């Protein structure tokens, strides 16, 4: 098989072989994709199974069905991961956006409203400590996350660090030590 872009190759095969079978599962997958944006990790498998089954039934070759399925799964997984990360980055940016001007002990509200209104959240962010260093300005912050606007909406307290990056303040907490990655990867 080709070394580059297994997804592309298999998509091409499917289009040649059974163009009608393609559009139905893809169209079915799209609303699901929009609905479960925050942390939907199974969608790739579902889309892969749908397209794999569709193309498998149109061809006598089981390998082709499998190839289309796994190629679709890879493509959808990568897309979901990209979308989820951009959304999470936007939330991180909102949490620390105002901490630059905030003295130690002071709080300010934060809020994220996504273009697709799923996973909107808000809370307060408090500067608990300056992190004095020679490279840039950094602060340790504790923030709350309230997922929703109801009185019983789930909430949590979290701590992180933020540093000044040019004119902006950005999330600065580095990744965990690799022995602690385990199931994260």
């Amino acid at each position, binding site marked *: 098989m080709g070394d580059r872009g297994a997804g592309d190759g298999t998509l091409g095969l499917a289009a040649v072989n059974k163009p009608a079978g393609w559009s139905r599962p893809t169209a079915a997958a799209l609303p699901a994709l929009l609905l479960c944006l925050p942390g939907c990790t199974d969608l790739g498998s579902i889309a892969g199974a749908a397209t794999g089954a569709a193309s498998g039934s149109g061809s006598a070759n089981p390998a082709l069905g499998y190839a289309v399925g796994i190629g679709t799964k890879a493509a959808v997984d990568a897309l979901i991961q*990209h979308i989820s990360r951009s959304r999470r980055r936007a939330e991180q940016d909102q949490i620390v956006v105002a901490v630059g001007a905030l003295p130690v002990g002071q709080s300010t509200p934060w809020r994220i409203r996504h273009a697709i209104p799923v996973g909107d959240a808000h809370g307060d962010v408090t500067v608990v400590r300056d992190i004095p260093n020679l490279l840039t300005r*950094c602060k340790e912050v504790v923030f709350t996350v309230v997922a929703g606007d109801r009185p019983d909406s789930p909430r949590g307290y979290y701590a992180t660090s933020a540093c000044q990056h040019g004119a902006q303040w950005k999330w600065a907490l580095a990744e965990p030590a690799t022995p602690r990655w385990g199931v*994260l990867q």
Partner: protein
Amino acid sequence: MPLLGVLSLLLSGCSALLKQGGAAGAGVAGASIAGAVTKDAAVTAGIGLGLNAAASAGVKAIEKRVHRTEQDSIAAAAGPLSVGQTATWSSGHYKISVESNEHGELTVSRLIRTGNLDCKEIVFSVDTIVKHKPDRAFYTTIICRDGATWKWATAEPATERWGSLQ
């Protein structure tokens, strides 16, 4: 080995694509071979899925090892410093690199010492060129001394905050 070819070609960045593409490529290749010798769809898919999982685990293991090297080089550079001192760090060179070689500056912002514990809070920069201009992103982490070596000590995020990480 086509998979190794893919690995070494996609030298830097794009680890998600590498993870997805490499694993899918192996699965598809496996399924094609299986499909050539058997007409049983279940066997074909089984062989393909098995290879897909194995390749995915392989890519993750390589990625983790490369990243551990980078964490070790940052911790080693920061270990001898005291508060207010700076040093440079570089992630070094790899035979197969799934991440670009990174470098930057680091400094110690706080000593965390209690009992036998010897830890430091450090601030480090990752220096890159963005649109022909030098760009510095800053991050904080904690390192602790384990015998003679300094190791990265930051734990994983709270599970409630994993969300899109997985």
